[in-house]
């Protein structure tokens, strides 16, 4: 019996509605709404806003862990990791339209994996945002709204809800990049808005097609696989796939997101690089492949090819990159290429690996982006060629960088290993050449990160950096949290494996128990 089941029913026979997913999604927004009405003139007022921001992110993290552990406890009874378990929430919403819609929240293994990653990243982002003193209210409200949007996408099981959450980041991201960005920030903001809106348009058309042609006369996303007449399946599959690939930062559609990451600063780049592409991956795997597994598997070779192109291009671009944020963006692209290989593999093992890797990717990219911000804040430099010999002044920063680089390279006992090992193992029998090339590309990227570490931290100490100080207590806290999660997943992957396997089986073989 799960944790939640124990709390939802009382001994007197009065049952209370399950509200874990509702609390998970909306808690951050509730704090955002409170923050909107607070002043931000004095230092104390700004501190109050930051406290509320951290509290909102903490509340979401609390409910995410609750949902995760509750579902892990249910693995033994077969429901953990599959939708329709104890936590499901479904209430009538738009029932008067010929195609009905409901407030349906649920999550499978993939959704829970990403929920965990997203809440951890936002919690650390909220802590990192304490160092900012400009536009504090805007930053806090936008970040909390973005967290609600991301979590909403991951637990929505109704098309209307899914679309609302999918398009919700447009305004906050646009405002954030205009307020905090640098360089070509206007162009980056507009490209991102166009990208998200186009992906929303594609998803809207897909939703309309599916709701009408499936014969279900419902916007509900809980009934899979979906059967459409004629070319409807192909059209709907490619509409969803197109929308997802647009925000996944995979080659050749990676430009806008990389620009956004490069032209943003501080905590923004963390969210843009770690969270937004993961939502695209969720859309591709959970929605496109989950709804149309047969159509998806028929394009396996195409996705393997896309994975190879993404990893090779991303790896080579990372090798050439001088801007730290650009480098990390390329590393994220390479890891997303590995995810694509897992999609192409289309086996339980490879899809289970995807879940591990998406968590690892989010944590690695978030850590590296936060480290970049820390380095930039101390040295006023963000180009690798202008850095060097920092390890003497900032040994802890160097250690955190090394840990993240090793995770990206898939070193055992760190989060990246489980994901990459399972993806390569699951995909190799299906796509031998592609798996070999992607494996090589992954090793190259790990090497690039280590080489970057050498150029940034090693070498002779420079006079210009002699006053640079190492991490403070606040930074140790959020870097420590990120590192701890990477280690926990790397050391005890078995704790999560059952949940993720069930989730993978649900995506690959929908409709079977």
């Amino acid at each position, binding site marked *: 019996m799960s944790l939640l089941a124990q709390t939802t029913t009382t001994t007197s026979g009065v049952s209370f509605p399950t509200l874990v997913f509702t609390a998970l999604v909306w808690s951050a927004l509730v704090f955002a709404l409170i923050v909107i009405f607070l002043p931000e003139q004095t230092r104390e007022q700004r501190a109050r806003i930051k406290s509320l921001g951290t509290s909102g992110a903490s509340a979401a993290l609390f409910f995410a862990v609750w949902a995760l552990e509750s579902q892990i406890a249910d693995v033994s009874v077969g429901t953990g990791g599959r939708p329709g378990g104890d936590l499901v929430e479904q209430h009538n919403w738009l029932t008067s*339209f*010929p195609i009905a819609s409901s407030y349906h929240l649920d999550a499978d293994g993939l959704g829970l994996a990403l929920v965990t990653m997203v809440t951890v990243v936002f919690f650390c982002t909220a802590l990192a945002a304490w160092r900012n003193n400009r536009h504090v209210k*805007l930053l806090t409200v936008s970040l909390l709204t973005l967290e609600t949007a991301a979590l909403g996408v991951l637990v929505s099981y109704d098309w209307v809800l899914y679309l609302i959450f999918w398009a919700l980041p*447009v305004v906050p991201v*646009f405002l954030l990049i205009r307020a905090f960005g640098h360089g070509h920030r206007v162009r980056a903001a507009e490209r991102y*808005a166009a990208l998200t*809106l186009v992906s929303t348009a594609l998803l809207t*058309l897909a939703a*309309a097609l599916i709701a009408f042609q499936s014969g279900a006369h419902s916007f509900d996303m809980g009934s899979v696989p979906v059967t459409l007449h004629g070319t409807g399946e192909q059209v709907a599959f490619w509409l969803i796939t197109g929308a997802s690939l647009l925000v996944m930062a995979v080659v050749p559609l990676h430009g806008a997101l990389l620009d956004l990451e490069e032209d943003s600063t501080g905590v923004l780049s963390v969210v843009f690089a770690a969270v937004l592409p993961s939502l695209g991956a969720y859309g591709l795997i959970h929605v496109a492949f989950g709804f149309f597994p047969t159509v998806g598997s028929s394009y396996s070779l195409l996705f393997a090819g896309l994975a190879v192109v993404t990893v090779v291009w991303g790896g080579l671009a990372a090798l050439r990159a001088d801007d730290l944020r650009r480098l990390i963006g390329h590393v994220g692209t390479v890891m997303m290429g590995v995810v694509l290989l897992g999609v192409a593999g289309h086996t339980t093992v490879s899809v289970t690996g995807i879940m591990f890797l998406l968590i690892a990717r989010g944590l690695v990219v978030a850590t590296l982006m936060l480290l970049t911000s820390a380095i930039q804040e101390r040295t006023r430099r963000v180009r690798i060629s202008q850095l060097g010999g920092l390890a003497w002044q900032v040994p802890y920063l160097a250690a955190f960088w090394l840990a993240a680089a090793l995770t990206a390279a898939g070193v055992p006992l760190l989060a990246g290993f489980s994901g990459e090992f399972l993806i390569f193992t699951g995909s190799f029998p299906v796509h031998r050449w592609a798996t070999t090339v992607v494996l090589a590309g992954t090793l190259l990227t790990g090497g690039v990160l280590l080489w970057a570490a050498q150029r940034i931290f090693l070498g002779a100490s420079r006079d210009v950096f002699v006053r640079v100080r190492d991490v403070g207590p606040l930074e140790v806290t959020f870097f420590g949290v990120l590192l701890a999660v990477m280690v926990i997943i790397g050391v005890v992957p078995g704790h999560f494996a059952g949940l993720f396997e069930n989730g993978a089986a649900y995506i690959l073989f929908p409709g079977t128990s």
Partner: protein
Amino acid sequence: MPNPNGAAVFTTMLPTLLLLALAAVTALIGRLRPGLPASFHRWLSSIALVGAGIAGVITLDGLEHTRGLGLAAYSGAVVADRIGVFGVVLLCATGLVAVLTSGAAATRLGPRLPAFHALVLSATAGGTVVAIQWEMGMLVVGLGLLVISLVGLVALEKTAEAPGEVALRALAGGGVALALLLYGLAIVYGATGSTNLAATAGLLAHAGPLEGLGLALTVLGLAYLVGAPPLHRWVLQVASVSSGAVAGTVVSLAAAAGGIALVRVLVSGFSTSLRPWVVLAAVLGAAACLYPALLSLAAGGLRRLIGLGACLQGGLLLVAVIAGGIGGDYRPAGGVTALLFGLVIFVLSVQASFLAVARLEIDGIGTAVADVRGLLRRSPTTAVLLCLGLAGLAGLPPLGGFIARILIAESAVAAGYAWVAAASVVASVIYAIPAVRWMATILVEDDEQPAVISETPRLTALVGVACAVFGVVATVVAGPLLYAANQAATALR
């Protein structure tokens, strides 16, 4: 014509009669006692509009006895059915917002404020006739009353030269649109031998080229009201030169009445089984969505952006109306439900946006980019009101406009017009980009100008914010609102 049933005539015509009577009283009092305070006229008009709305709702009780068919009078020329009631209530609510926020126009209107109230009431009365009519003659009478009243509203601001010219142009445009409608209906009458719209669909089962021309002219005439291209220029002109309060009133009342007229004439009268008008409306709808959206990318001022947003809403209404019948799966496609749901959201978004413009006018702030840069720091309420209005027009989530767009797209796909749905979605995407760009300018960018103490009357500000917030709340209460829209739509099935 047979003798009308007295009770049915009284019940169906009560809202219209009430509005017309109070319009006359307001105009008369304004003429005889010019010194009365503005609040007197405001509350008198409010009472008329609330009373008319309640009278409309009361007729719902009578529907029980007609098994939902509605009370008919004058041989079925007017029918108080559910869609009529929905239209009456929506129009009265739109008029009420205009009346309650008339304080924003007080400076420019001066002693003509009672005339403003009288014209709002008569325009609403015209709209209610359009909502309850089932006959060509009544339709023309209702539209005539509406258009003349709206032109009068624009012309009221004759102290400024530009509004006077725009009123003349709008009058000419309205005349052309009414003429198109009249020619169209005349051709349809010639083909069917009946002026009763309820009988038209059956008599026009096989539309030839001439009948097709009649249908096309009628569609074009109705497109004028909702501001859909090619007869959309009046919306842009009114938006550009009239005061925010007047522009909001004129555009939203025209859209509300136009939306109901589209359903009454095209879906209920002609039926979606008549291909000529459906194909024309589909092409027109797609173009009417895309054209203003593309123009919005180059919009240099807030007024033009809002005006183009209103035109885009007109296009969306046309998209919804083509899905007013049965879908490809022999079930209702839901176009009318989506249209009525969207109409409520669109009308309030237009009102909220123009009220924000009115606040800017009162506070002496312009509507160019430089004027609204960093507005959040200078005038927070206006900035939020403006952004919510723009987000509502652009259909950005989580506002109700987003849900309306999904429902319209879904109904168009269900009706077999996926390409029109795609055009409407693409247009929404295009329009959203400049809307977000302006929002960023208002909310994020810094400027050196000092804070502004708002001079806007408190009631105007309150109603404006309520309209804007409704866009957000509409998502939460979308269920009941959609239920009401669907109940109204059932009158046509």
